[in-house]
């Protein structure tokens, strides 16, 4: 091989080496580094998007906290009013007697039926709440129809839980005569009206009903 041939061969070798090196660098740049960079940038963008989404959810939570606080207060108020929990019949008897005196009811008889538990369900989950329902029947006698009406309203307001009126009857016993009016004037009260009221006494059970109440 002459010097020129060897020089040409060396030139070819250098060219091939440079080509291989260039190909290696290009492969490294465009086959690995650039896709890797793009991948990391996409991951960063995804993380930022996720952070933004969580931030929005946190803002939603702040609004939800306000709503929850209002609902909790409302719930606690209901709980305080006796709508949540057990029906305390002894306490109900005390309240009825106190109201009878306050509203000048001369005669009061009442009956509280055994508690029935009904389920208030939500479809389609078929889950819901259990509610204790007792029927209260009041028989009362009084002097004025207003007394009976006020007493009924007071019972509805005063008893713990929620009372729904299902039936009211009021009937005049007799027409006041002159003699009766004189007795009334002497302070000897008498009964001119009788009435009956039926309530549904309702409270939501959050625990099983305890015995002895």
């Amino acid at each position: 091989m002459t010097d020129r041939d060897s020089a040409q061969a060396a030139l070819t070798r250098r060219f091939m080496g440079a080509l291989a090196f260039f190909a290696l660098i290009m492969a490294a740049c465009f086959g690995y580094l650039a896709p890797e960079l793009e991948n990391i940038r996409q991951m960063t963008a995804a993380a930022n998007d996720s952070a933004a989404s969580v931030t929005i959810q946190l803002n939603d939570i702040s609004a939800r906290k306000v709503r929850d606080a209002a609902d909790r207060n409302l719930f606690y108020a209901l709980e305080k009013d006796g709508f949540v929990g057990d029906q305390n019949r002894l306490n109900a008897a005390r309240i009825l007697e106190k109201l009878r005196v306050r509203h000048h009811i001369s005669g009061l008889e009442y009956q509280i039926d055994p508690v029935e538990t009904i389920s208030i369900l939500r479809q389609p989950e078929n889950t819901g709440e259990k509610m204790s329902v007792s029927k209260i029947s009041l028989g009362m006698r009084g002097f004025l129809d207003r007394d009976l009406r006020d007493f009924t309203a007071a019972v509805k307001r005063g008893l713990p839980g929620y009372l729904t009126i299902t039936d009211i009857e009021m009937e005049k016993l007799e027409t006041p005569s002159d003699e009766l009016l004189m007795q009334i004037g002497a302070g000897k009260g008498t009964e001119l009206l009788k009435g009956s009221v039926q309530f549904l006494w309702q409270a939501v059970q959050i625990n099983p009903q305890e015995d002895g109440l």
Partner: protein
Amino acid sequence: MAPLPNMEGVAQRLFALKRFVLLVGDAGAMIARLSGSRVVAHQFLDGDLEDNVRRAKLTLAEFPKYPVILLFDVLGQSYRRDRLPPVNMLDRPKIVARKLEALFPGIEFKGGLRLGPTEGDIRGFDYLFAAVSTSPEIVAWQAMLGQIENPTSDVRLLPVESVKLLHRLMHKSNGNGNGNGARKGQWNILISQHRTGGFRQIVTRGHTLAIARMTSGFVDIESPGEIAALLQREIGATIDYITRLGFDRAEGLNAVFIGRSDIGATLKNVQLPVRSLTAFTPAEAQYKTGITGASDDSGHFADLLHAAWGGSRFLPALSIWPQKIRRQRALALAQSWGTRMLAAASVAGFLYGANLLWEIRRAEAEYSLADSSRGALQQRYDAEITKLDGGTMPIARMRDIIAIHAQLAAADVDLNRLYNAIGAGLSGNAKLRSLDIEIEQPVTVLAPAPDQSGPGGVQSEPAPVEADIILNLDLSSFRDAEQAVGEAGRMTRALRLALPDMQIKILRQPLRILPGDTLTVKPGENVLAFSGEDRTAKIQLIGRVK
């Protein structure tokens, strides 16, 4: 149209390629080292042939990497103008090689220059074919090229390469700076004084070489007048010759002279048979052509100018190097430049890769920051959610209970409104004996909750509440039955006005006058006198109370 800039000159200045130009003439040789279009060094070789070759080898060995361009300016040049048939680009080299072999058989240095399409009806292309006849001097210089380490870049002919030099000088002398050719059909002549030969005449017609003549043997004559007289005769002979090629003496010949200044001045004074004459010294000519360093010590000879012009061109006007060797050289050049380009591209790629790596590091740091930020936010969110769902009872259940209570409250009937309506309807003569109210409560249900954060399962519209109300009216204060019946009717109408959503009807009248009743009147009985009967009326109200 504005002339294009001289891109080749720009490239020469930009790259400043370094090379040797070996100008071989009949009276010696000259070797010049170029950097772009600048002559860095030169050496006249005017001894005997063997000594010239030896000195040339020594000079070339100083820079063995520099390529050599061989530029012939010898008498043994042959030119033929001929036509080739129109063939495609791939076949053209073969046709040219065949033509050259036919025109100049056995000669190694030969080549063809395409001049343009053939004028007239015959299709084809005009070519200028040229060759350098083999001589002992040519063989010696050719042998030297094989012995030196420097690569041979090209072999060219001075008259062909200097055609553009003539045009450049013509335009520069006319004040036109573009330096690009002459008017079509215009005859021009370049006369230059050479140390390696004598007086070289290059005659062009338009843009192409017409003839080239060398007048040697002026070595012993120093007188400008004598030289001018001799040149006058030589130019006359040249004109005679080109007249046979179509030169019109009436049109005239534009001449440019490069050489000694006193000869140039004398030529201007003598009556040369040319239309115009412009004389330059080599120093002036190099200034006009953008070449530097092309003035030798004497300042008389144009060898350096021609060598610098013909050797600094990237692409020759005509290469007479054998095609096979030219291809090998082209391959070597392509590999050499390709290696450099690849190296440069690799460096750029490496820098790009480094930049990518740096970007990856930065992106990783950004990702790490973003991910940790997202993680912290997610933790805070989870904590808030746990806090929200914590407590003695889930908020959803509280909302259910609230919803149940809301439904019960919505179903509650305001009895005072009923009492007021009834009280307002009663007149002074009618008394309410009894009142019976039955209320039908709607069923309490929970609506499906859309989501946990919503306000709970409250129904959008409360269910209607129906009631059945019976009023017993005491009408005993009426003595006239018709008035009592009227009072019941009036009461009914008053209730209808007060409670428009309810259906109100009279179930019983003080007299049995309703369609379902049996009215019995005994003889002598005045039913309208209203005696002995139960003087009451019963009114029923059915319907929606809320």
